[in-house]
């Protein structure tokens, strides 16, 4: 996408205010086969597993994030409901990972990063002085964009969280269950003592998922957890996510529209500039988005 496109879209955006419904119905005309299938996929979603009045567990109010002078997120307002899957989509570099990191305060580790505004987890602003980021991260697990297993055995990798969080009862059982849920146990069952680095990229990704779910966090943040997986593993991970969503809140970044449409209940669309342009029920976003820019993005016209 070029600079020009962005400006055009911005221009359209300003005109939108009066008659958004009409503006939305048009753009599909020029779209190709892929976008059709996308919309088809979105139609298959059994809409709204999340009750409309679900409790909000993560809430951002006017959240800005800067890296030195560069603003990566601009005035993000979002209410992520409890027990459900929220997908974050948007073009590369629009701030999805940044938003994810600001939820569990991983941005604290980046010297250049600065956060303004409110980010509430269970009603408490996580950037308050009396919040211990370590305790926060024990409630909010994370799977990173690039797999980063430790140079330890597979077993020790999965047991890491249990060890540091002092959750010592029945480590064996927990490790096996986590590997099982991450669709990895079958492949590694008899090499649990070998190094996690000896696995393939996709296996490492699942190992990291197992590691994140083992200590049983309340919220799971996943940054493109299926980017290196084949369709079978991907569908297993998607099953896992749906499964997890019954008890946990899952926030997932994905570049795969079908995936977002398939698994998420809510979808947030970020666009270049770090702006959260639209946040709504997934079916609504994919079938009938409010903003033309969003429509363009998910139909592949832009980005």
């Amino acid at each position, binding site marked *: 996408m070029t600079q020009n496109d962005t400006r055009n879209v911005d221009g359209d955006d300003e005109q939108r205010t009066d008659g958004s419904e009409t503006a939305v119905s048009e753009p599909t005309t020029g779209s190709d086969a892929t976008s059709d299938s996308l919309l088809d996929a979105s139609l298959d979603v059994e809409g709204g597993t999340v009750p409309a009045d679900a409790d909000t567990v993560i809430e951002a109010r006017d959240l800005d994030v800067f890296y030195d002078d560069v603003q990566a997120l601009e005035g993000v307002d979002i209410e992520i409901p409890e027990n459900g899957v929220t997908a974050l989509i948007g073009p590369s570099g629009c701030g999805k990972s940044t938003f994810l990191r600001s939820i569990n305060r991983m941005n604290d580790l980046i010297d250049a990063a600065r956060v303004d505004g409110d980010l509430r987890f269970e009603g408490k602003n996580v950037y308050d002085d009396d919040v211990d980021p370590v305790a926060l991260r024990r409630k909010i697990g994370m799977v990173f964009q690039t797999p980063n297993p430790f140079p330890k055995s597979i077993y020790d990798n999965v047991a890491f969280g249990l060890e*540091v969080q002092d959750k010592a009862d029945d480590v064996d059982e927990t490790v096996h269950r986590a590997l099982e849920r991450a669709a990895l146990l079958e492949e590694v069952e008899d090499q649990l003592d070998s190094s996690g680095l000896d696995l393939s990229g996709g296996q490492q990704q699942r190992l990291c998922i197992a590691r994140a779910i083992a200590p049983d966090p309340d919220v799971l943040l996943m940054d493109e957890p299926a980017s290196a997986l084949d369709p079978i593993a991907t569908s297993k991970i998607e099953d896992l996510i749906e499964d997890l969503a019954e008890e946990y809140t899952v926030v997932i970044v994905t570049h795969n529209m079908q995936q977002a449409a398939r698994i998420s209940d809510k979808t947030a669309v970020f666009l270049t500039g770090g702006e959260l342009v639209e946040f709504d029920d997934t079916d609504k976003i994919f079938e009938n988005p409010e903003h033309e820019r969003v429509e363009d993005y998910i139909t592949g016209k832009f980005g």
Partner: protein
Amino acid sequence: MATTDDSAGAWFGSDGQVSQLRGLLFKAGCLGATLLALFLVFVFLVYVAVDAIEPGTADPAWWATVAATVAVPAVALAAYYYRYDPRAGEVAYTAVGLPIAATLLAGGVGIVFRHIVSPHEWLALVVAALVAYGALEVHDRVRRAGAFERAAIGAIVLVVTIVGLPGLVPSLRSLILSLPVLPMAPLSLLGTFVVPVALAVGWYVRRERESERAGLIAGGATVAAAALGAVAGPVAGVSWTTWLILTTVVGVPVGLYVERVLSGGEGVSGLALPVALAAGVVVCAVVVETAGFTGPDVWLDWEFLTNAHNRTPREAGIYPALVGSVMMIIVVALAAFPVGVGAAIYLEEYAPTGGLLGSFVELVEINIANLAGVPSVVYGLLGLALFINAGGLQPGIVIVGGLTVALLILPIVIVSAQEAIRAVPDSQRQAAYGMGATRWQTVRTVVLPRAMPGILTGTILALGRAIGETAPLLMVGVAAVVRISPTSFFGLFSAMPRQLYSWAQLAKPDFYHGVLAAGVLVLLIVLLMMNGTAILLRNKYQRRD
């Protein structure tokens, strides 16, 4: 099309050649520099070796015998391995190198037990440590206490068992030492040195082989071989203690290695090289003895290693200086490693990075790097001012020399440890923090294990530098000649480089040629061993990433 400038001609053949003249010249220049450096070092080594060995003093027949019995078979075998069986070649060089390195190490262990901790003191230390450990375990069983209480109990137990309160409570260690009857020295060593080694060997073998029995056999054989020395030692003409150290430090690793090669079945023919060398040496000795050929008058011989300095060059030796160097290196390592690594961890993992404090930290880091380049004489002066003038310690004792040299290598240790810590990828830290690890947990379980090989490599190289330092020792008054090895860390000592320096100043040519050259060789061999260890360590762990 990227390889041709001229689009008119063909892209191959003479038309298609891209000029590489400058590249070739550059390559030749680099090669020349490399060769020059290697040549200079080589010439120096040959010069020193000739001085130390004096090959001209031997019968030509003697050299012919050595060549025929030792050199030719070895070269022939090496050529065979190179040509037909590289795997056996690897085995062969390890099988020759391992015993040599292990023997040198055994020498070090021998020096430690002879001059630094006597077998009885070692016994007392081990028993006291065991009691301390047992007490901690019992305390842990009885109540699951918090970290603070555990640390406090640990400190108390250590004081009671090992340190004691001076003048008030004698420690368990000193109580044991004051017992009227103690087991004789070799028996103490058997119990407190051989048995732990045997346990470690048994554990290792059991894990490698996944067989309880193999572990038991390995451990049992270690103890049995050492115990056998009570009878076999005197027969072979060495003391039981020597025998015991030799079997554990040399016999165990060599035995394990040979056994592994034999049972692995790969490159077994490599074991022929050490056998051929040993047989060659024996045959050579017999032939030389019966035919009466005189060998070279080498300076670097057993007497040189075990004698003190003497006015007659032939009698002069390096032993007290060798012991002094070993003791000094222990002080240096104990002082520089924890302080240096601690500072590096702080600077890399904890120090503030932004704002005014961050700039200050950066300034400190730059200055530490600069300190690494400060001439060693200056550190000598610093040591003189700090430890002797201000600290009131006696000049020329081990601890002063060691601490001064530790100051000298501290910046090197810090910088190399910092580099090793920085080389741990940030994604690893993120993974740990993302799992809810505290900073301490991250450092302990993720950063340090991964950085440790690099830290150790850097530290060993720095210790190599420390062992050769002369100027700081001159400044803190280390004696030119010491005839008795130091018996404690507060005793007067001389170190190898200091001894070499004084030999170089003596008027007799035999000193500044022969004796000096032999000393240089000893120093170089020790250095080579240390650097070799560092390189092995680095290679072993580099492969894993």
